[in-house]
Structure formats: C-alpha cells, structure tokens
C-alpha cells in the first residue's frame, strides 16, 4: 500500500487515506465526517431568488406581448376591411373620406430616416473615431459627456429647439417657411448621433490594441490604420449601431411633428412639409373614431413590424459576423 500513487498528480497518496486502519496511529483525525445536507432555509432562499429574477424577465416579455396583442387586435380590422394591399400600397390618406392608404406615410418616414442617417451617420462615426482614436484623454473627458448628454435631452426639447431656432434659420437661408424634410433631417441627425457614436466607440475600443500596433509597425499612418484596419474590424458593431440609429430615427415623433409641417403628401422637394407614420398617430388620435381610429392602430402595427425587422437584422448580422471571424 505504501507505494500507491495518485493517478493525476503522481504523488504518493497519504497513508491515512490509503489504509484506514493506520488512521488510529495518525495524529490527524480520520476524514469521515458526513457532508452537510442543504438547509431548508438556504434552499427556499435560492429558489425564491431564482423565481424573482424570472418574474423580472417575464415582465419585459409580457410587456412586448401585451402591446403587440393590443395593437394587433385594435388595428387588424383595417387590413380586413380595406385589404392589405390597399392599406400598405395606397397613396391617399384621407380617413374622413374613407381613403386609408399609408404608402405616402411609409415613404415619408423612410425619407426622413435616410436623410437623417446620411447626415448623422458620418457625423456619429466621426465622433466615435475621434473619441476612440484621436482625442487626448482630457479632450475625451469633455466630448464624451457632451455626446451622452445629447441622448438625455427629451425629444420635445429637440422639437422646440428645431421650431424656434432651426426653422427660422432654414427659412431665412433657403426661403419658404422652414417646415419640412430638411429641417427634420437636421434635428434627427443630431438626435441619432449619441446612439450611433456610443456604440461605434464601443466597437472600436473592442478592437485589440495589438492590431493597432501591428498596423503602425507596418509603416501605416494613423489615418490608414483607422480607415483600412480599425473601421473594417469594427464593422459589425458599426452596422448594428447604425441600425439602432435607424430605429431611433423612424420611431421619433415629438421632434418631427414640430418641424415637419405635416402635409399629407410625398414632399416634392427637401424644403416641403410632410407627414410620417409616427406623426399621423399623434396628430389624428385626438379626434379619430371608427375606421379612422382602427387605421391608426394599423399604422402602429406597421411601425411595430419595422422595428422588429431592425432587431432581426441586428441579430442576423451579429451571427454572420461571429461566423466570419
């Protein structure tokens, strides 16, 4: 028995364990104490905590499910009544005259989003590159809180600012009243900057430093390193950030309604007023009744589906990105 060895470590097994009889002579007590059973109090506490967290998670799921159910039940009849194609494909939105086509609103929402993205996207990615790669630590401490503060401003304040400050400027420079697509673009562009900039900065920071060093050590300049290595390396995160920004832009209501001018047509110029999917709900809801009210819930369903598509897109892209690397 004396030369028995532990198969993992190759060390001799102590006598006491190998031969229980010799335990009487050993100065150490025999290792025979029973293992403690779990106490009832501990068991119930663990179970209760587990269920508490489960409940928290369920509230979120239930919230989404209930809203979807409610909006779906309220809005579904309009699809049945005018037909999916007529509802989504119709250009005329005159609910009081029984015209329930929302294509104009969909197109307008997309126009607002695309313009905001075209201005705000580069601005936000540029801000993120500055924060992550260019700024000195002191500069970063000034700019980053400013960007984060931008996210905390209530959208009605953006709208107010747009109405009182931006609209007159646009009117003065380009003529007209200043309500319309262009003014909305400017406001939305600023509003999506914090969303995109913060997430893009995270994506850039998660690129390992070794990769920056490797690029500099190859004789790349800072600009070449950012453009050819860092942005491509962070592209999945940046695309996710942009999609979230798109979601923000398309869902924004308050700021848009105050400067859009709210005409029920597709604007034929960038300084022309227009109505979107979100603003129609806030404008019409106070007086809508019957089919008109149902149609507004139909619009809500469309908004819901658009944001679900954005979330799905992010999931697909992230998975794709994981497979790529």
């Amino acid at each position: 028995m004396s030369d028995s060895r532990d198969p993992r470590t190759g060390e001799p097994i102590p006598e006491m364990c190998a031969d229980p009889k010799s335990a009487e002579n050993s100065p150490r007590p025999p290792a025979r104490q029973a293992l403690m059973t779990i106490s009832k109090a501990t068991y119930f506490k663990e179970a209760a905590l587990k269920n508490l967290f489960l409940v928290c998670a369920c509230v979120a799921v239930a919230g989404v499910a209930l809203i979807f159910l409610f909006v779906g039940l309220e809005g579904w009849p309009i699809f049945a009544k005018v037909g999916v194609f007529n509802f989504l494909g119709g250009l005329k939105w005159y609910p009081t005259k029984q015209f329930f086509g929302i294509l104009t609103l969909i197109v307008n929402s997309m126009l607002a989003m695309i313009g905001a993205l075209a201005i705000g996207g580069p601005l936000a990615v540029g801000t993120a590159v500055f924060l992550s790669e260019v700024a000195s630590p002191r500069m970063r401490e000034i700019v980053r809180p400013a960007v984060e503060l931008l996210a905390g401003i209530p959208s009605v304040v953006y709208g107010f600012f747009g109405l009182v400050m931006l609209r007159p400027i646009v009117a003065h420079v380009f003529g007209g009243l200043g309500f319309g697509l262009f003014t909305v673009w400017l406001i939305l562009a600023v509003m999506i900057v914090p969303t995109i900039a913060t997430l893009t900065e995270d994506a850039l920071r998660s690129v390992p430093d070794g990769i920056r060093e490797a690029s500099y050590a190859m004789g790349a300049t800072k600009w070449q390193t950012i453009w050819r290595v860092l942005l491509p390396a962070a592209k999945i995160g940046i695309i996710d950030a942009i999609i979230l920004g798109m979601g923000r832009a398309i869902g924004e209501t308050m700021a848009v309604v105050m400067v859009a001018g709210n005409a029920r047509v597709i604007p034929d110029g960038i300084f022309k007023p227009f109505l979107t999917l979100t603003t129609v709900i806030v404008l019409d809801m106070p007086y809508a009744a019957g089919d008109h009210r149902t149609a507004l819930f139909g619009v809500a369903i469309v908004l819901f589906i658009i944001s679900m598509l954005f979330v799905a897109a992010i999931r697909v892209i992230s998975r794709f990105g994981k497979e790529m690397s």
Partner: protein
Amino acid sequence: MSDKLPSHVVTPGAGPAYDHGDKFKVEKLDFFYGGFNALTDISVSIKRHAVTAFIGPSGCGKSTFLRCLNRMNDLIPGTRVEGRITLDDHDVYGSGVDPVDLRRRVGMIFQQPNPFPMSIYDNVAYGPKLHGVRKKSELDAIVEESLKRANVWKEVKDILSRGGLTLSGGQQQRLCIARVLAVEPEVLLMDEPCSAIDPTSVQKIEDLMAELKDRITIVIVTHNMQQAARVSDYTAFFLQEVAGEPAHLVEYDRTASLFTTPKDRRTEDYITGRFG
C-alpha cells in the same frame, strides 16, 4: 569590438556569421516613462545581416529598448528618449524624421500573434497596398513570396481567402511574419515571438530566421536562453539590478563567447540559472 575579430567566425548552431558592419548604432541611450528612468546608458551596435538576441530577466527593459529602435514607443504618451540611435548612420530620432517611413524599413513581430481580422491574403497584401502596389498580379506574387519566406505557404496556399484568425497561434505568428516581410523591411524586430506558440511553429520560425538573415538584420528579444544560443550571432544581456532603478546593458558579445566565457559575473549567474 568585433572589428578586431576575423572576418568570419563559426558560432555554434547559428551557422557562419559574417561581419557586415553596423546596421544600428546606439549611443548612450536613456529612456523615460514620464519621470521614470527605465533604461540608462545603453550603447550597442547591431550588426547587419546577423541575428542579435536581447536576453535578461522579466522587466529588464529588453522590449522597451527594442521598441526604441522603430520608435514604437512614440505611440505611448509621456515617453522620452535621450542619446542617439542611428540606422545606417542616419539619426532615427533626428528632427523631421518620419516614424512611419522608419517603421516600414524596420518591421516588428509581437509576442501575441496579431493578424488583422481579414483574410490571409489581405493580411499579407495590407502593407504593399499601403505603399502603393495596386496590380493584382503583382500583389499575388508578393503574397506568395512572403508566405513562402515565412515558412507558412504550404499550410495556407489553398485557404488564402479564409480569415487570418482561423489559423492556429503558431500559423498566425508566421502569417504576421509574412505580413511584415511583404513590405521588404531591412530590419526585423521580434519581441518574444515564440513565447505564445506551439513547438513545431517555434522550430519553423527559428529555421526561417536563419534563412532570412542574408537579406535582413534580425533583433530578437527572448526569455529562452537556449533559443538565444541556437538562433543568434550576437547576444546582449540586460539587467535591472535594483527595483525602481533604470535597467542597463551588462554585457554584449558574440553569442558563442557570451554563453561559453561570459566576462561579467552577473551574466554568468544569469545564464547558469542562478537568478531570473
């Protein structure tokens, strides 16, 4: 010192070493991280077309010194260099010298393999593209040649479009070597290139160092004294004797001499394993 030696001397395991003169000349170099004096009074010549090894215990400033040679320390705010380093008699820290051009000529390999998150081909083509090579046929030729020189072509020639990060650690390191070789550097600085990879790849990297040195000057930092003895023609031993004091160069000599008849007591203690 080596000027007095015969024109070539056979060093054990490293093949014949010819003295082609000095590639780098370092005179009285001091290095500071902010107020902390990390290296002091380093004077050393690095021979052209030879492999020079820097050895010494952890934290003795070998890597810091290596990074002075291609001014990678410039990227760390608050660092400062005193003294003089010349590359082919041109002052590396001279006014108006572009560190970007210096780094193209003095390539670097890091401890952790760091391929870019792009295809194997694009990793190697990155440098040439930076420096203006546009033609596909030209790039193809450079990529193949570089991967061959880095001893990794056979393993990757059929998967050039696959991501560089899908390779094993040792293959990644050789890919990084190929990436550097693609810009035809005159010097290759290797900062513990073998400490994070498998033994087969270590063997391949040591082999390629021997093959590369007829065109390139190689400086390697290593913790592994057997490796220094195997691959290098010259060895420099660095030591920080008191914590908080700057590190300095204790001894620099032909590898064969330093490992068999060290002149300094501290070198002898270190290579015989008495400390570090």
